[in-house]
């Protein structure tokens, strides 16, 4: 088992984001072996004697320096920071949680106009619009992009949703009654 750990570590550290599939193909191991190994590596690097950690971002595994060493690492590395305003963040959250949504639906959620925020978020590459040709009137829908997952450092949207529902502290039996947004 130890050798798999070393193999997967070497692969991820020298690759630029590898999926479980990539790792299976490269190492010739099966899915369970890879998943188990990823867990072990994640566990190992979560210890405080490590300054880097394993993350699944948009389905791809990479190592990142831990946020607590940001000040230190930023002395040698630069990151371009794009500031997101509160209102943009709100619109982004509405789309993230309920996508796909039309502009009208977003505005209904928020209770006010948000054309500007939507435009800005598109130009930041965090959301994009798509057209649903099947629907009447060919309306535009807004959805989050892969860049959104990358900006948040999460593997997929379910990460976000699960945690949110857990945090709202609603008992299991009630939660099931909540109307599910598609």
């Amino acid at each position, binding site marked *: 088992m130890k050798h798999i750990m070393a193999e997967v570590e070497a692969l991820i550290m*020298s690759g630029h984001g590898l999926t479980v599939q990539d790792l299976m193909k490269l190492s010739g191991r099966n899915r369970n072996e890879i998943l188990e190994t990823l867990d072990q590596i994640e566990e190992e690097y979560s210890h405080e004697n490590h300054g*880097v950690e394993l993350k699944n971002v948009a389905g791809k595994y990479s190592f990142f320096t831990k946020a607590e060493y940001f000040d230190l690492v930023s002395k040698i590395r630069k990151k371009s920071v794009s500031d997101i305003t509160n209102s943009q963040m709100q619109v*982004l959250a509405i789309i993230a949680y309920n996508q796909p949504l039309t502009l009208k639906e977003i505005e209904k*959620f928020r209770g006010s106009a948000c054309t500007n925020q939507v435009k800005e978020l598109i130009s930041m590459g965090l959301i994009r619009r798509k057209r649903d040709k099947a629907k009447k009137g060919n309306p535009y829908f807004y959805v989050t992009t892969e860049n959104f997952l990358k900006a*948040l450092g999460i593997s997929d949207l379910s990460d976000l949703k699960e945690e949110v529902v857990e945090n*709202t502290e609603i008992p299991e039996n009630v939660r099931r009654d909540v109307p599910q947004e598609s």
Partner: protein
Amino acid sequence: MDINFHSGNFEGSFDLLLFLVKKHKMNPLELRISEITDEFVEYVEGMDKVDIETTSDFILMASTLMEIKSRMILNPSREVIEKQEEIAKQLYEYSLLKETTEKVENLYDLHMKEFDISIVPSFSREINDSLPSVFMKIINTVKQEMNLRKRVYRITKDLYSFSKKIEMVKSLILKSKRMRIRDIIETSDDKLEAVVTFVTILELLRLNFILIDSEETVVINEAYHG
């Protein structure tokens, strides 16, 4: 509990409602309006009535709550229960949204502080991962040659463009028909020009202008020149 809230403390009436629901450890979906209406009204009355637009939202909510509360006490009809459920559902959606916004914000801020890393593959082999060996060989020859002559290396930015170099090398080879690669490279004044010269040779090979005779010699391609 301090009730001197300014309207700025809550972005909207749902914020205040959610605050009270949480304070009473109530589930948003099992909202019991009668239990929190008085408090809600108290907060709204304590607000600065400066921002009419914001406060009107609170006042509207307060009156809705009061209406539901009184009707619940007097006559808890199906209609009024549905009204309460409607507010409960909206409140739940609002709390999800608030939670999501916070979560997105936190994740964004956190990941902003993380740098991706990438490791160089095993360094001993890395050196083997280089340009084609003939390139290496020639560059090394040039290096030795130049060390020997201890020339003055002056890098002039615009002395040689690639096209000029091609013409130079072409005429050189046309003259002698057959040349050692090393001799062609040696016409260069410095290392970087040597690189350009070598690439020129490769380009002429690609164009079939010349052919490789042995590993170190090129000849004019007679077929090409008719």
